[in-house]
């Protein structure tokens, strides 16, 4: 009898212990769920300056964006302050875009840019979101874009309608290290349906780097850089061939070294419902195939230009 009582007591205790464990687990799970906070605002908006960031808009919001890039600042010539107001007088590229996010993860957009007369569409998907405690240490976003140029070349360069298309696919990985500092690295692929010269590649790859440092709650400094992994540089003959519609080449010794890596520095300023982004970059184009692949100006020669983006978000 005594043995039976002891065995029953032990069983009760052990069941009690299990129950307690389960309760603790449940509580922990509850805590985990409650504590699974996503790192918000890794970057201020969906673009850093030219490049896309991992950010998508919030659920059911429409973003109207206006982007401008002015002419070369010609900083080496101080007289240009009066002549061109550091490029503000010159021809500017302008892009208007309308972008909608369905659920905070999936975003689509359409845009038009006067540079190369490109109409484009894109889709972006936020695959993984960084959490502040355990879970995901990084955010991952996928991007795909399609670009149609309406430029008339005067020859049969765009003989097929599909030749007017180019594409960009990107994977972006970012981490918000602390309240101030965020960093993003990614891989971008630009595809042209047609290229002009025998040695040109249809597929170009870029390693992209984007960073932000927050100065105050409403202001941050930003920088971005794309490193061309397989540029077409230095192989384009200067005579013959089609009327290539994109920016002209810089000629050296009968060959061209036309394209440089795109880089920008800028400032994000948040005001009310707008985000202003003001910066300096060496790219004129505002679409991915243009600024990644056709930047024909060089930072090292101070061939830089001013630009700004304005973003206005509408909630539905």
């Amino acid at each position, binding site marked *: 009898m005594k043995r039976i009582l002891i065995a029953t007591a032990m069983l009760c205790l052990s069941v009690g212990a299990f129950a307690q464990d389960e309760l603790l687990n449940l509580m922990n799970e509850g805590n985990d769920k409650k504590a699974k906070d996503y790192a918000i605002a890794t970057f201020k908006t969906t673009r850093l300056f030219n490049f896309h960031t991992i950010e998508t808009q919030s659920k059911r919001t429409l973003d109207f964006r206006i982007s401008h890039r002015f002419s070369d600042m010609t900083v080496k010539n101080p007289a240009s302050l009066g002549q061109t107001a550091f490029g503000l007088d010159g021809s500017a590229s302008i892009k208007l875009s309308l972008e909608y996010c369905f659920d905070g993860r999936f975003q689509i957009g359409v845009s038009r840019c006067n540079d190369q007369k490109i109409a484009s569409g894109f889709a972006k*998907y936020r695959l993984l979101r960084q959490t502040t405690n355990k879970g995901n240490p990084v955010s991952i976003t996928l991007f795909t874009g399609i670009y149609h140029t309406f430029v008339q070349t005067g020859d049969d360069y765009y003989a097929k309608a599909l030749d007017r*298309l180019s*594409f960009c696919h990107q994977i972006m990985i970012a981490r918000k290290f602390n309240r101030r500092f965020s960093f993003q690295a990614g891989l971008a692929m630009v595809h042209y349906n047609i290229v002009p*010269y*025998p040695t040109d590649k249809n597929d170009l790859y870029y390693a992209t780097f984007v960073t932000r440092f927050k100065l105050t709650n409403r202001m941050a400094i930003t920088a971005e850089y794309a490193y061309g992994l397989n540029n077409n540089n230095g192989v384009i003959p200067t005579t013959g061939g089609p009327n290539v519609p994109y920016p002209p080449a810089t000629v050296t010794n009968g060959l061209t070294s036309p394209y440089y890596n795109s880089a920008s520095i800028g400032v994000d300023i948040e005001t009310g419902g707008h985000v202003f982004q003001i910066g300096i970059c060496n790219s004129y184009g505002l679409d991915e195939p243009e600024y990644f692949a056709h930047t024909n100006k060089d930072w090292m020669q101070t061939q830089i230009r001013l630009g700004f983006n304005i973003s206005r978000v509408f909630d539905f």
Partner: protein
Amino acid sequence: MKKTLFAFVAICGLFMSGCLKDNYSVIHPPPAPGPPKPCDTVSSFSLGVTPIFTKYGCTAVNCHATAGTPGSGVVLDTWKGTNKANNNGLLLPAINHAQANGNGGIFWMPLTGNSLTACEVAQITKWANEGAPNN
């Protein structure tokens, strides 16, 4: 989440369906050089012979123009002068370089050192052989 991820993948697939890999220089190769053009030997003084003299500067003043001092007294800017040079046997030996330079006082022309092309020599020779018409 699954629906929107599927939508994103579908859009990627749609975009990729429009993908081509064209190269203009492959689609439009430079034209292959054709056979050499046959020499058009029109027997004409004004259309065949004079343009060749003009091209090589033969009719410049103090070369073989009527004005100035024409070399060896040969005048090539008129039919009369050219016909005379031909009749005197000075024209063809100077341009076809068949004999040594300076032989018989006839020097290879043009003096600049550029020879007439075979076609140009043939053209002038044909005109001379057909009686050097003033046409």
